[in-house]
């Protein structure tokens, strides 16, 4: 698995409140792949986000789904704080920030 594969998998993790995947939202700050081991640095839209724990669980689930030998670690960071400008065009469109 390489970082692109991981990113593709993470696109299946949908923020349950916004209905947008976490990669498009820009919540994934870093993906490191060492052999079969994957380390994700991610954030949430706000530090008090009640979905934070659930999002981490979802990331772990999609990465550990199916046959894989390595470990998965997820680190939640708030520096830098998430900003909507980190989201991609499609996410901005869904948020209503740019016309559809």
């Amino acid at each position, binding site marked *: 698995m390489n970082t692109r594969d991981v990113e*593709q998998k993470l*696109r*299946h*993790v*949908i*923020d*349950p*409140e*916004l*209905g*947008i*995947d976490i*990669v*498009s939202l820009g919540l994934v700050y870093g993906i490191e792949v060492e052999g079969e081991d994957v380390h994700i640095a991610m954030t*949430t*839209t*706000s*530090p*008090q*986000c*009640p*979905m*934070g*724990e*659930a999002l*981490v*669980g*979802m*990331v*772990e*689930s*999609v990465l550990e*789904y199916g046959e894989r030998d390595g470990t998965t670690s*997820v*680190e*939640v960071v*708030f520096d830098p*704080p*998430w*900003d*909507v400008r980190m989201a*991609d065009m*499609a996410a901005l469109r*869904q*948020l*209503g*920030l740019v016309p559809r």
Partner: protein
Amino acid sequence: MTLAAPGRGPALALVAPFFLAAPLGLALAGLILAFSNGDTLLAINAPRTVALTHAAVIGWLTMGIFGAVYQLGPAVLGGRLVSSRLARVHFFVHATVVPAFVWTFWQWDVRLMGYAASGLVLSFILFLINAFPAIGTLRRGALPARYLGASLVMLAVTAGFGITWAGTLQHLWFPVTMGRLAGHAHLGLLGWLGLTLMGVAYQLAPMFNVVQRKRPVAGGPILALTVTAALGGGLVLMADPGPWVRLAVAAAMAAGPGAWGIEMLRLMLARSRRTLDVQGRATFVSLGFLVVTICLGLLAAIGKPVSPGHEPTRLLLGYGIAGVSGWAGIMLIGNSYKILPFLVWYHRYRQLAGIRPVPVVADIYSEGAARAVLAVHTTGTIVAIAGALLGDLNILRAGGLMLTLGAALHMVSLAHIVLAPHAPAPRRIGPGEVATR
């Protein structure tokens, strides 16, 4: 991994009954309004009006707020419940006592009122045992926790005066003058309901509407101002002051919510989630009613009594409906469509998410049904205010019926959230990709 707020949610079966039962209080209040009689427009302390008030504030709003505190405390503020079983017992106590309490006002049976009032005090004690730890030790300095802490104290103070007034109605220790009535009423309305909703809004409005470019700037001073005005103003009102002092108290009481309203408007206008869902819409509508409430409240403070010895009843009634049903009520209705679906998602789908397609929060409630509830309730509130201000009993009654209809719709749509199966809607999951998750 460190998360500032662990997403520990209480059981759905604990919180949902509070949200499902709350609209019953609104339906009851609407029905009482629909059965208004001539006294309703003549005296603000007419038995039916006091029954109506408590059905709305304790049966509806307080019941809903109980559910919200039990949910948001552990899930968002990092607190914990002392005992879930106690919270369940509390539900049954409150749900049993409220109809009895309202009935004693309707009948004006001062003896039974005393018993029912004691039951209500018990309900509040059971709540407070869980509520103080629930609002969090982790983030006690945070604005919402400070507002909620203050509002819980205000609830205790309000209930203290309430049981005293019920006691004196039975034992005739002293008269419950209009001023004493107004003091207790404002401690409850501004101190308990107002502060709670203001605090919860500081948490939820920016979170759900993705507000980042602006932060609350005056939350602390607004809290201090509102607590001082509710407590100080409430006590001053109890001394039955003259019109100018009443006006000064009214202005002081309006200042906090007014400034908070401006803050909310600033935050909401800076939101990154431009598409408004029912919670966002309800926030704006509720802010509109806050303006109406403040205007009517100030007018009522200087208003001419309709007859000697009476308050300006029609203005006060309109003011009360605007504040309770409009400002506070619509805020609660809007937030119900976030809090309850979140809880359902958390308990039913969190474990499955990432493994198989699950609905998102927006798939769990019907936006169309929620907007219909908001529209019917808003119309009912406007009609009832108009009926009160015009002194037209039929318009007032029609408003009451609409509020009951809105409450029934609200209850059905909340029950649907909890009981119905939910399907994930088709949505984009990656660039250029549309999939049915």
